[in-house]
């Protein structure tokens, strides 16, 4: 199981999903209609490192974070 965290304004509690790769996580999250607009806009981090491909293998206990558009300052 990997843990998926939804940061900032997404306002959704973390979930655990069965996934062997980031692709599996994407497939799982795409099933949730409430997440659809966020998936288009969010950056993704695996264990707190930003990634730019879904071709990443995951192991149990990995943390996936979704980061919506930002505006600091």
């Amino acid at each position, binding site marked *: 199981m990997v843990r998926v965290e939804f940061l900032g304004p997404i306002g959704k509690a973390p979930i655990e999903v069965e996934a062997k790769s980031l692709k599996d996580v994407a497939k799982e999250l795409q099933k949730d209609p409430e997440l659809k607009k966020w998936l*288009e806009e969010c950056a993704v981090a695996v264990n707190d490192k930003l990634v730019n491909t879904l071709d990443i293998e995951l192991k149990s206990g990995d943390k996936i974070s979704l980061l919506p558009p930002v505006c600091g300052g």
Partner: protein
Amino acid sequence: MVELYTGDLEIEKICGKWYKWSLDKNFGAMVSFIGTVREEKGIEGLSFDVYEPILQEWFASWQKKAKERGAVIKMAHSIGNVAVHSSSFIAAVFSPKRRVALELIDEFVEDFKANAPIWKYDLKNGERIYARDRSQKISGSGILNSL
């Protein structure tokens, strides 16, 4: 390390502390940028969420770039609510000569706006409203939707 504070920043205190720290480091220049909450569209203030692990890593990569140019960056930011006419962000660059500090503060603040994992909300009638129209997608966004 980014300094994070709950609520508005005590700018005089933070800025004074950094200035004193710098005096015996032989820097010839200190350039600071301070972000203050403006009164507009009837907001009572702004509110911020921060994701610290990635923020600190992002900042460390900038500190490395600054070091290569003989400079040091300092930054502080608010978490939670900040009322209008108070400040939520300060950054400062210290360098031996002015040009590096002036250029670096510009590059740093622009990248901060585009990539630092901080989310802004307007405070209106006690409600927290995500400032989506002023927010920018972090580079690489949208991959989860790309299948």
